[in-house]
């Protein structure tokens, strides 16, 4: 579980102190590579740029879901609705009220935050499986609700935003024919901001409280944090992030139809991406976003309509068995053989405590276990 800590210098794994110059420069290098990749992505042909844009948007949405499901352990099957609410917020504000599309992102964030809080509220009393069902109902109801208010949303006909309202502004120097490049950069910037927000959130006290909510065992370490409200708050932030991803999606697509874009299937796709990339990791959502876009694309030759669902369903099951931490979890574990970052401060709930949980007992009934410490031999 834990690596032998005393190793001679020079041999693998390399020991690096957190916050040291080496660590900083490694981080810098990683960032530079990412930015470089982003630029390379923008220079591919417009079809590729489109795919990449979708992947980045999904990555943001998955990052939002990761907060609730990955870090806090509450399965949400309702994030398709938040994504949809964000998308429709942008769609309506731009097409009906002539807003600058980018400004609508902020509104989406706020609206979805409030919706997230409302959906998260039952979490104060309803837990686990019941909460999953409530979010499921949300996913099912959302397209139906959109269709019920055609005046506002365009109903089953969908909502089309005039292309001229979505064009890149002059200062970007991007012309009409390259407008997908503009959406690509928006998606990339949104994703970068989202990841920074998520990594900050999950690192500090809030992150500790989230994980404490997930693994009851470590709850003791979070004394003084109101775990109940953490759930609601996490739901809010998580929904807000996914909502902003929805806004970016609306810009990219320009036409919205709830029945095809924001159904339960989207929720399952987001969950699949999360699981492939790795729950409770910061970079996992990027991998997940790329996977859920590119896997169906690459396997297009094989599939005839339904095969994609069979494929993703099977992947979900297999991953939970053989790679429950996803690709990033796997990479993380393997990278430990090469580089170890020694934390500055004492770690929060560590991987070790999670593994203990896995190995724990089959019995869940409280009345049969451990009051063992109440009597003492010495009298």
């Amino acid at each position, binding site marked *: 579980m834990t690596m032998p800590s005393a190793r001679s210098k020079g041999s693998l794994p390399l020991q690096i102190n957190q916050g040291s110059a080496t660590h900083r420069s490694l981080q810098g290098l990683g960032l530079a590579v990412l930015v470089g990749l982003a630029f390379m992505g923008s220079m591919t042909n417009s079809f590729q740029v489109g795919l990449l844009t979708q992947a980045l948007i999904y990555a943001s949405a998955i990052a939002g879901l990761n907060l609730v499901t990955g870090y806090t352990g509450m399965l949400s099957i309702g994030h398709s609705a938040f994504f949809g609410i964000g998308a429709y917020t942008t769609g309506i504000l731009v097409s009906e009220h002539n807003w600058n599309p980018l400004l609508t992102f902020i509104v989406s964030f706020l609206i979805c935050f409030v919706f997230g809080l409302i959906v998260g509220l039952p979490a104060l*009393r309803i837990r686990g499986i019941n909460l999953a069902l409530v979010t*499921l*109902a949300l996913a*099912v109801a959302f397209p139906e609700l959109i269709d019920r208010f055609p005046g506002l949303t365009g109903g089953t006909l969908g909502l089309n935003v005039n292309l001229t309202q979505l064009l890149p502004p002059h200062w970007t120097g991007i012309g009409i024919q390259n407008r997908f490049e503009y959406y690509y950069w928006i998606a990339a910037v949104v994703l970068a901001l989202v990841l920074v927000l998520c990594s900050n959130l999950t690192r500090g006290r809030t992150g500790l409280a989230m994980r404490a909510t997930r693994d009851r065992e470590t709850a003791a370490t979070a004394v003084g944090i109101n775990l109940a409200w953490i759930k609601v708050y996490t739901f809010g932030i998580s929904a807000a992030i996914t909502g902003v991803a929805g806004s970016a999606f609306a810009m990219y697509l320009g036409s919205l139809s709830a029945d095809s874009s924001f159904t339960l299937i989207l929720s399952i796709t987001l969950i699949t991406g999360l699981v492939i990339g790795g729950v409770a990791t910061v970079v996992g959502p990027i991998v997940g976003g790329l996977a859920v876009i590119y896997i169906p694309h690459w396997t297009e030759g094989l599939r005839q309509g339904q095969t994609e669902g069979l494929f993703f*369903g099977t992947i979900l099951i297999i991953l*939970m068995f053989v790679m429950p931490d996803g690709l990033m979890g796997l990479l993380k574990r393997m990278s430990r053989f090469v580089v170890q970052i020694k934390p500055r401060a004492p770690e929060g709930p560590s991987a070790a405590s999670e593994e203990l949980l896995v190995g724990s007992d089959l019995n*869940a009934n409280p009345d049969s276990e451990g009051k063992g410490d109440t009597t003492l031999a010495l009298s």
Partner: protein
Amino acid sequence: MQVFLEYLFAGISNGAIYAALALAIVMVFRGTGTINFAQGEMALFTTYIAWGLTTKNVPVVLCLLVATAAGFVLGAVTERVFIRPIERKSLLATLIVLLGLFLALNSLDGILWGNQNYTMPSLFPNSVSSFVSVGGARLYWANLGLWIVVAVLVGAMFQLFNHTRLGLHMRATASNRESAALSGIPVGRILMLGWGFSAAVGAIAGILFTPLSPDALGLGEMFPILIQASAAALFGGLDSPGGAVAAGLLMGIVEALLSGYVPAIGGQLQEAIAFVAIVLVLLVRPQGLFGSKEVERV
């Protein structure tokens, strides 16, 4: 009066199906502590099997038996292969596997049977004239037959739970798995049986429900019913078979009357409304109407 009765009959039929599926959900929940998201898709899968057999001129009753057996095997195998190894890890992992199963089964149905809708032949006389008149309203044999079969099925399940040795062992396993093992109950086998029975009940529900209207056997047809049934199970209390059956019936009737008299509410919005109502109930009584306190799991 006549209109009311017709709404009522339709409501009882839907309610009977919700009740049967809610019972299936409760059976899995009591054993494993999770909701089987794939319950509806399992029922759909077995209904397709039955339909496939009817196209080969196999008598419907025989199709029902084969599909029920297939459902039983499907449920038992699912428990053994997909659930048992993952269940110890976490509830989240289990739910994700079940979502995967949901997706995979539905797509498999599509691959095997295509995505057009079919009409499932009924077990009972099902022509336009096969009805009895009750207070001026038409009560079709298909509906009446469905009520009777579901009533017998539910009765048999309660008999099994409460008056047989196997039922006692199932209840003991649901109450405390470790103590059950320590008393000599083969817990694994009991869980498999529970999932098997659950899926078999679902299979019967599917075969009874789909013939009620033409073209009702399709890829998207079972999921909304599962949603209603889980809402009913939540409402009645996830660990209470009696509560689930009562809530299922109630939900079917209320829904039929509401959408009959208040046409603005219909389609899937109904599900949303049902759920909102149930969430409100759960906020007051998290264990459901008839459930017991300890059901609430983290």
